[in-house]
């Protein structure tokens, strides 16, 4: 089958990509700005074609626990939501991480805290990258900055989830979810006919029973499990860091930005360069694992580093850790659902160059 070119919203691209990635099940609850995903899937009705189950759950709490149940059967399952709904899912995500289940969770972020706004924001970075629920765990976090990546990261997300038996989050935002762009859709992948050997599929005489649980009351064994997770996360840090560079070769002023902010900063780099400032952009594609090493290296040549994000400064902390005090690091970004403009970023940079 050929790839196919379409004009789509980011949210629709996620839905279509899930069908094409051979997903077995989707469980979701409506919330702006991502309700199109559930709507698209309901209309597409993939149960009739690929056999993919689509179900509107009674809450995000139920949705994420349906994901747990499906994932524990070795199935490719996903859910999507936006910030308040993702907060409700955190207990379930922690259980999924604790039971080492593969799944995909998409967060089309809107501004908070609380009910906040339905406009785009990047204020769920900490929640996505540092754990989010209780206990010591990490998600693999992918940050798309285009409709194309919204689609591509569904397949990639499932692959990583199954490779590491770990939940994967696509951390998007309302702008990417809602905007329309051209997108190349991958050919249909058939739904898998086999499941991993750990999955609960009914105990056959040929094997021991499979138990999916996150419970371990023996402290020694629980600590051993925690160490196992650390080793897994270290392997992920070693092998799965992804980022993109834009005019970083000679950059003295380095923007670090992901998602929508990275799109903005590409333009900021051009404006700054037109004004004779050697600016560059590093765009983390994975937020966990974070491209710390690369940022550390680039900081060798940099005079100023700006963490540009639509939050009060969350990724900033990871940039600071990467740079380790070698270069001044500042945060810039609008909040409340306001998308930063490229000019604002450059103006802020100039202010900092002048020592402001």
């Amino acid at each position, binding site marked *: 089958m050929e790839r196919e070119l379409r004009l789509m919203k980011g949210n629709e691209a996620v839905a279509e990509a899930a069908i094409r990635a051979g997903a077995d*099940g989707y469980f979701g609850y409506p919330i702006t700005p991502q309700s199109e995903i559930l709507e698209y899937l309901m209309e597409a009705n993939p149960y009739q074609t690929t056999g993919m189950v689509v179900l509107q759950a009674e809450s995000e709490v139920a949705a994420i626990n349906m994901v747990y149940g499906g994932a524990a059967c070795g199935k490719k399952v996903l859910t999507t939501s936006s910030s308040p709904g993702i907060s409700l899912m955190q207990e379930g995500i922690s259980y999924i991480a604790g039971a080492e289940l593969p799944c995909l969770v998409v967060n089309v972020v809107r501004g908070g805290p609380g009910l906040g706004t339905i406009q785009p924001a990047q204020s769920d970075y900490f929640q996505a990258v540092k754990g989010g629920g209780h206990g010591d765990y990490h998600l693999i976090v992918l940050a798309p900055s285009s409709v194309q990546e919204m689609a591509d990261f569904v397949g990639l997300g499932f692959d990583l989830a199954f490779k590491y038996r770990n939940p994967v989050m696509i951390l998007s935002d309302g702008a990417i979810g809602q905007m329309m762009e051209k997108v190349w859709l991958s050919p249909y992948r058939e739904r898998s006919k086999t499941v991993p050997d750990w999955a609960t*599929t*009914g105990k056959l005489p040929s094997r021991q029973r499979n138990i999916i649980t996150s419970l371990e009351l023996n402290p020694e064994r629980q600590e051993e499990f925690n160490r196992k997770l650390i080793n897994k996360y270290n392997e992920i840090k070693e092998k799965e860091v992804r980022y993109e560079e834009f005019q970083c070769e000679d950059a003295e002023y380095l923007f670090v930005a992901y998602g929508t902010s990275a799109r903005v900063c590409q333009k900021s780099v051009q404006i700054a360069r037109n004004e004779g400032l050697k600016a560059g952009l590093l765009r983390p594609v994975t937020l966990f694992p974070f491209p710390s090493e690369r940022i550390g290296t680039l900081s060798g040549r940099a005079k100023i580093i700006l963490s540009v994000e639509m939050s009060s400064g969350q990724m900033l902390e990871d940039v600071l850790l990467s740079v380790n005090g070698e270069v001044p690091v500042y945060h810039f970004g609008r909040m409340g659902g306001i998308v930063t403009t490229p000019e604002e970023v450059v103006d802020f940079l100039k202010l900092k160059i002048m020592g402001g």
Partner: protein
Amino acid sequence: MAETTGIKDYIKPENLVYKKTGIMTDNILHYCPGCGHSTMHRIIAEIIDEEGLQSEAIGVSPVGCSVFLYHYIDIDWQEAAHGRAPALATAIKRLCPDKFVFTYQGDGDLAAIGTSETIHSCNRGENFLIVFINNGIYGMTGGQMAPTTLPGMKSTTSPYGRDTRQMGFPLKITDIVATLPGTYYVTRQSVHTPANVRKTKRALRKAVQYQKLNKGTCFVEIVSNCPSGWRMTPVEANKWLEENMLPYYPLGDLKTPSEETSQKTNNPE
């Protein structure tokens, strides 16, 4: 010295009156003496065994005293977050429609924190079985008040007895789910006497057989005890159950498939 007969002399096939159910594991049950959970585990294991469902069964254990149910019955298991077992079971059954899927949940799990999942899975008529152990108390966390705690009943969080004006009335969730078109068979049983154990086993077998029809949710409540949480001996607890729990939670079928309300399959095919 006169010869004495030893235990070995009695272990003969012709003397066998009772044996371990094939699919109970050798793990030692962690329940308090006299606890209804252990009896119910055995009944479930027997039914799965007798109905030949071991290779099809996927069980979902709750958070509560029976969280380690997966240690005792030799089938595939998923352990759910507190109250969420029906959400897991929903996905399991929809993604693996030929499996026999069931949840096992306490009253705190099913009727307090998990009320939403319970009602909505029953309302959608999900094709799995719910086994609901109502012991009127939170056993695992040390005997706090449950939604099912009787009026006036003492618990560690209702030390002067449940005051219904402050704490509400015991929730008859089984009666609620019986009104939903999505449920197919709803019954309330107990395991506090041998006769009731036999009735419960019959009801559970029926539920399991109905479940195969994929015509909606089957729901089996077991009015059970919690000697430790109730601060009673097992014998006292069963007497108390009979005198206090059963008048409030009368035993018997609440909904049987002959009723017209029973829903068709929700399988889109």
